[in-house]
């Protein structure tokens, strides 16, 4: 499954709800304000572990628009909209955490 998160965890607890639900094969994509969760001073150890296994992505345009690029946490992979489409194709059901 693909889980998209579009809010910062400073604003809502949708990321935490997502992390409580996620299984071993799921991946997370941060979009919109969700990319704030990809900053190296914002994310949890669980995100760091998931990122280390290549399962955390962030939408590049939204990362750049919010000035997160210089402080992107380790191992988070950037994708463009075509990459977003590919993630949906590859991972089956897409769950939107809002």
């Amino acid at each position: 499954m693909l889980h998209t998160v579009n809010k910062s965890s400073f604003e809502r607890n949708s990321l935490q709800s997502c992390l409580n639900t996620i299984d071993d094969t799921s991946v997370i994509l941060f979009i919109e304000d969700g990319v704030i969760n990809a900053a190296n001073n914002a994310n949890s150890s669980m995100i760091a572990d998931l990122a280390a296994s290549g399962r955390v992505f962030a939408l590049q345009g939204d990362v750049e628009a919010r000035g997160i690029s210089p402080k992107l946490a380790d191992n988070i992979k950037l994708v463009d909209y075509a990459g977003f489409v590919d993630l949906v194709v590859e991972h089956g059901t897409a769950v939107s955490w809002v």
Partner: protein
Amino acid sequence: MKFAIQVNEGPYQHQASDTAFQFAKAAIENGHEIFRVFFYHDGVNNASRFTLPPQDDRHVVNNWASLDIKNAEGEPELVVCVAAALRRGMLDESEASKNSIEGNNLHPAFRISGLGQLIEAGIQCDRLVVFGD
């Protein structure tokens, strides 16, 4: 692959409608089919033909219309939920005359229909992706 998209947020409110549009555009450019876009809740406001953003701003309604998503019969597959639309004063010609209201504001690239269209899209498509706030 066949995609359905659900948009639950109005234009210029946050970012969901823009993200959904960019996603749909990228999907089409990469050889996928957008079977239907279903506008629900405040998402119905994406269908107003009276939308006039400043010239240097993106035109969310025209962006959606430019995707020209139609079915084999030539009907638009940018579908607006009827209950959500009527509540928010989003009317096509038929709904306006049914309710004795003069004028209508639905952009011709969109059509008004029921929630069954969302369920059908979920059944027909390989993927349903939801964008909202």
